């Protein structure tokens, strides 16, 4: 008897493990929520799933009973039933009640998620980030800190971070699945919302969340990823200070890198800034800011961050992001030039 119980326990764990492994990756899955917003949404998911599974169970029971009991056995004509007021009232009223149970938390959560009033308060210390989406890359401006970065968002954990979203070409949608639902970046207006990144669970996810574009925007829609580095407030502050400290482009170290900087200043700097100051309007920032490129986790949001990939990317971006706007904007580079550029760009770090 005891043995049986043990077996039951083991199989229970097996099922549990299966379910948990079925929750996706912690840096990407909405089923592994890592912040207040994602938690609220996950709770709504669970509530609605629970109600709906209840409905499904009832229907399936009736359905199976019918399959078993009412197969045609003889040629008799069954009684022609018109209907039943009692039953019909039951299956009208009960669903209405079930939906009310879902509607109330839905409405309350909808209003809560849209509440960005904290930003407008006097002397607000809230972190605000202006997100600007472009064909296949993301521009992040911190107006309060007066710095700009691209492709890799850096945020403090355990506090509300407010976002102002807009697109500068076609419509995109800003989504960090593990941290909260998406909001579109429209072309005509600024959309606002907030997210919160939980410190402990950000650690579990390796402090690096995946962000996605969720609105079809052209050939490379699938590759318009960005990354979110969620770090404690202290680390965030020191990152901001380090960024603010870069008044002039970081000087290259070593001969090869210096050669790379020269090439960069000739061919790339027209589009890519290497200082973080936000003194240009958003529409003038036509390519990702590369101030801290060496610190980042991916090249172009998708490729592993190493020199080999960087050289491949610069020599032919079209293969990696079809339809991107970088292709053809600069002269073809020799291998030697690519080496130098890669050396220089990888050295662009604000933090050790």
């Amino acid at each position, binding site marked *: 008897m005891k043995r049986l119980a043990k077996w039951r326990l083991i199989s229970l764990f097996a099922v549990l493990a299966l379910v948990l492994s079925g929750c996706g990756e912690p840096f*990407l899955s909405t089923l592994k929520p890592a912040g207040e917003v994602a938690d609220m949404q996950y709770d709504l998911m669970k509530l609605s799933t629970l109600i709906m599974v209840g409905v499904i169970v009832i229907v399936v029971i009736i359905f199976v009973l019918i399959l078993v009991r009412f197969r045609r056995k003889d040629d008799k004509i069954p009684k022609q039933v018109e209907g039943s007021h009692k039953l019909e009232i039951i299956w009208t009223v009960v669903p209405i009640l079930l939906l009310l149970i879902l509607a109330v938390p839905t409405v309350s959560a909808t209003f809560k998620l849209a509440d960005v009033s904290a930003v407008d308060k006097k002397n607000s210390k809230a972190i605000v980030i202006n997100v600007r989406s472009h064909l296949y890359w993301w521009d992040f401006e911190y107006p309060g800190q007066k710095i700009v970065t691209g492709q890799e968002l850096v945020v403090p954990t355990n506090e509300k971070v407010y976002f102002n979203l807009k697109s500068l070409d076609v419509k995109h949608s800003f989504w960090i*699945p593990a941290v909260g639902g998406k909001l579109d970046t429209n072309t005509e207006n600024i959309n606002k919302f907030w997210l919160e990144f939980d410190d402990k669970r950000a650690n579990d996810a390796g402090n690096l969340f995946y962000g996605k574009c969720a609105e079809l925007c052209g050939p490379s*829609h699938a590759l318009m990823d960005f990354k979110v580095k969620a770090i404690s407030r202290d680390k965030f502050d020191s990152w901001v200070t380090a960024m603010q400290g870069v008044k002039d482009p970081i000087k290259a170290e070593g001969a090869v890198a210096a050669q790379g900087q020269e090439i960069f200043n000739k061919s790339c700097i027209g589009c890519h800034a290497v200082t973080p100051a936000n003194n240009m309007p958003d529409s003038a920032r036509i390519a990702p800011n590369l101030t801290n490129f060496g610190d980042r986790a991916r090249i172009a949001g998708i490729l592993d961050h190493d020199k080999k990939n960087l050289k491949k990317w610069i020599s032919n971006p079209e293969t990696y992001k079809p339809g991107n706007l970088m292709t053809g904007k600069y002269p073809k580079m020799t291998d030697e030039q690519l080496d130098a550029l890669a050396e220089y760009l990888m050295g662009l770090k604000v933090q050790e």
Partner: protein
Amino acid sequence: MSTYSQKKGFGATLWDFLTTVDHKKIAILYLIAGGFFFLVGGLEAIFIRIQLAVPNNDFVSAGLFNEIITMHGTTMIFLAAMPLVFAFMNAVMPLQIGARDVAFPFVNALGFWLFFFGGVFLNLSWFLGGAPDAGWTSYASLAIASKGHGVDFYLLGLQISGIGTLIGGINFLVTIINMRAPGMTYMRMPLFTWTTFVTSALILFAFPPLTVGLVLMMFDRLFGANFFEVSMGGNTVIWEHLFWIFGHPEVYILILPAFGIFSEIFPIFSRKRLFGYSSMVFATVLIGFLGFMVWAHHMFTTGLGPVANAIFAVATMAIGVPTGIKIFNWLLTMWGGSVKFTTPMHWALAFIPSFLAGGVTGVMLASAAADYQYHDTYFVVAHFHYVIVGGVVFAVFAGTHLYWPKMFGTMLNEVLGKITFWLFFIGFHLTFFIQHFLGLWGMPRRVFTYLPGQGLSASNMVSSVGAAFMGVAVIVMLLNIIITSVKNVKVGNDPWGDGRTLEWSIPSPPPFYNFKQLPLVRGLDAYWLEKMDGKKGMTPAEPLGDIHMPNSSFLPFMMSLGLFIAAFGAMYHVDKEPWALPLMIFGLLVTFGSMFMRSVKDDHGFHIHKEDLIDDDEKGVKA
């Protein structure tokens, strides 16, 4: 039955179909054209699943993939599902209300040819520089930015086929209001007729917003207007509203007739009248009404603000109630019945759990705050395939098997039918169930590929394997049709044995005038009532007399062809082609010339004389 028994050459048959105004032949045209586009859209679906089977696949390029998904969606909705549904409406609805044809047979033919030429125009984009690539929703900022003529094909093709759908809808409305047989009151109409009625009303109100949207975008792209050009003061969110004010009713336009078909199947094969008929009618009307109140739930993430999102969330949840009523009524129709497991009944039974799964995810999606997570992910893809495939496509398969004898006079093979069913059913759930999870795990929709290492690879492979099952199922179905047509074993009036409504009281296929004498309808399930009283057929409501029938006409074909030609002219006019403007004028001349001819030439139709009808009787009505 002389028209059917005579052997005709291919040319004569073709001419017959090009000029026909007979609702039964137009139904066959809709079935063939819709079936063809269904195969095209299905092939596109297979390509999508091959591309997504493994991460970083390069079966198709990124740009081509966007063309394929756009055309898959557009084709399946506008050119496959709608015409197939129209096929059954045309084939069955006039018979169900005891009419000899629709109210405007000429317009009926015109509706078909407009749809057909619109669909052909859209699909020619594949051969003329590339298909549209902005998604079937064609959101304005992307559509305006799209290069080449792809989106122009979308705009003009849908414009043309949209006119066809709209006049088809109006025609059905007038038919149901005016042409019911004596005794066929509204509350005695079969449920398929009711859903046709409500669907047609939805078409009447939903297609104009689409037309407006398409016209605005057409002016932007072809004639330099700036309705959606933000830098010139345009607004792209307007397009989203216009599209979804059409787009949401559109899904009910598709699903209501599907409900209608299943509402016929459950009573027939349970030998029991539809449970709660009046609440079914009420629920249908309510769904139709609420269908117009919820469009913004497609735009929860557009940033309309919490007030709008909350209102639309609650309104959307409300639709769950009438839909639930329907599900329980169907279940209770079978309860206590005598259920026979024919092929149509297989589809109908499978529809209940499949559609229910799609329905409950619909309620989940209605929860606005949670929808921010679901929106534009594979969760949504799974949801709408569960309702559209599990609802509409299942209904089309069910209807094809159910009404095949009524339309063609032969029975599709039941064994092959069940093989089709099981393959498709398994493939369907294999493909789409896992997609709910893909979405929740963070996979956006409309992605041409995905990177490895995100936990998405194995599930995508499962999904692709499922698609192959569905592909095989469709091939078996085609084989079934070929075998059945070659064998050509004719069947009688009521081949399923348990027909309840008027269409089963007349020969299969019916004579071109449908009813020799209009039947007298004594209640719901008119034919069943007569059978239960021991009668063989309907009691006539009128003495045998001359029947007035419309003449065939080639003009509907010409009117539609003219617009088709003019659309090419309008499109290439942008490229400053010297021949474009003359071509457009020529096309419009063909259309307006045909309309002029229709207006000035009197066409009173013809009469079938009483004596000929009696002759038909003596020869034995069976074809």
